[in-house]
Structures are given as C-alpha cells and as structure tokens.
C-alpha cells in the first residue's frame, strides 16, 4: 500500500484509492468544500480525477473555517 503524507501525517492509502479525487471522496469530503495542494502546488478541481497519487506524495487538504 502506498504511503503518502496528508496534512503532515503519514498514512497508507486504501487499495481502491488511485487518484486525488478517489482520496477526497473516500474520506467523505465534499469536493466543493475543500482545496487541495499536491506536492506543494495548487491542484485545481478539474485535475483531481487525472492526478494519480504515488508513494511519497504530499497532499494538503484545506477548507474554510471561521476567522477574523
């Protein structure tokens, strides 16, 4: 199983997760609610389904929260 870093933590990908879109949906996230950085570059939503996650990749998954 591929090991990747998500939000600073190392995790093992589930077998059925191949792309960034797979990961977002498997985690139960709503695509419109999150922003993704893939290996330090912003990954527009249109590319999530085409972007394969490989061993050692770094993902940042962010969302808007309350703030002043």
């Amino acid at each position: 199983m591929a090991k990747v870093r998500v939000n600073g933590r190392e995790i093992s990908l589930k077998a059925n997760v191949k792309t960034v879109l797979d990961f977002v949906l498997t985690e139960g996230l709503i695509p419109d609610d999150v922003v993704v950085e893939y290996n330090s570059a912003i990954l527009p939503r249109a590319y999530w389904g085409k972007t394969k996650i490989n061993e050692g990749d770094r993902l940042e998954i962010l969302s808007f929260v309350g703030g002043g």
Partner: protein
Amino acid sequence: MEDILTIGGEKIRNRLFVGTGKFPSIEIMRKALLAARAEVATVALRRVDLKNRGTNILSGIPSGCRVMVNTSGARNAEEALRIARLARAGGLGNWVKIEITADPRYLLPDNYETLKATELLTKEGFSCFPYINPDLVLGRQLAEAGAEAVMPLGSPIGSNRGLKTEEMVKIMVEELKVPIIVDAGLGKPSHACKCMEIGCAAVLVNTAIATASDPINMAKAFSLAVESGRIAFLTGLPDTFHIARASSPLTGFLDTLEE
C-alpha cells in the same frame, strides 16, 4: 445622498465588517451576520481534520455578503501568498485580508512582510486589505502598492481594549486617500462608534460579537454604533470648550425665594 463605500470593485453600504471566528454555532453566526446586515465577512483557511470534520463555514454566510479570506497563520509574505492563492483556487474570489503575524503573544503584524505580500498579491490581481500596525509611511507605501484599504489595529486581536491607537489612526485618516478600516481589538459598540466618528471608512469586528452572551443582539448593537458614528462624522463633530456654555437661556429667571 446615499453613503456608499466603493472598495475592491464593490459598493458597500454597511460599514461593519464581521469576522466569523469563535461563534457558538454556524446558525448563530448566520443570524448575527443578518442582524448586523453585514455585507463583508472574513474567513480563514485551515487544514481539514480528517477525523473530526466540521460544517463548511461558507454555508452559514448569507447570500449577498462578500467573503474575504484572511491569511492568518502566515508568518511571512510567502506563506500569505500561498494562502491567498489557495483561497482563490477554492472559489473565494479576490479579496484577501493580509494578516502576517510572527509574534504569538500579541499577534502583532509584521509590517515589512505585509508590504511585500501586498506588492506581490496586487500584481496577481488580488484586492488586498493589509492588517497593520498603524503607521502613516507604511500606509502610503501600501496605497502605492495598490492596497484597496489599510487595516490598522485598534489594540491586539481579541483583546477587547478598543482604539488604543487613536492618534496614529487619526493621522492616517487625515493623510491617506485609501479607506482606513480599523481591525482588531474593538470590544464595545462605543469603540466602533469612535472609529467611525474620526472618519474611518469601516471597522472589522469579530471576538466582541462572536463571544457575547447573545451574539445576535451584539451584532445589532455594533451595527447601530457604526451607523451612528458614521452619520456623526459626515455631519461634523462640534468644537469642544474648557468651561460651560449654557444650553438654557441665562435670562428670565424667577426671583430668589425670600427666607
């Protein structure tokens, strides 16, 4: 004539901007924004907690209320750029409150990094609202860099201490052409009213509303105070005098009663 603040390509009628942090619930936040008739609300961007996900804050912001992301958490210009770009990729538009704090105790802004971030982000098409320590020279530099407004702090974020920087803010109001929006530290409606009385274009309030025992009522109180101060400023405040000036006529008194 209608009093409109034109800023970031938008026309704003309500000069109370509201931050969305620290509300007891998204529903209370939504009602508070409505009670304030807020037209601008700020949000932050953070890592999703995959184990404990919250509701999307944007779902609680009433339609018609513009959303401005802050770059809180950024410690330098580079990190602020990263947050602004991510927010735009997340569909939040071009408005960004540049907030760069390297001091964890007082959360005071790094003016130098803030100027750098403003210069770079305006070139990328962002409407920049830099949060700063009040300083006229920096204000001029930010205006030259294309900032939509400058946001001097009243006192440290969340401190509720009010407009401790009044003299410097007054100078900025007098000298700068860009709108001055006091951000941070306003704890009471009277603090917000004071900012408007001295000619600030708007104020941003979060903690004092969000952590009130009734945020909805407090939002209304701040909204009224901001409107009141604005009307007073537009009307012109009176001169002050050292000794009394009678309001009632000084003639036509009754005779002194005989003992």
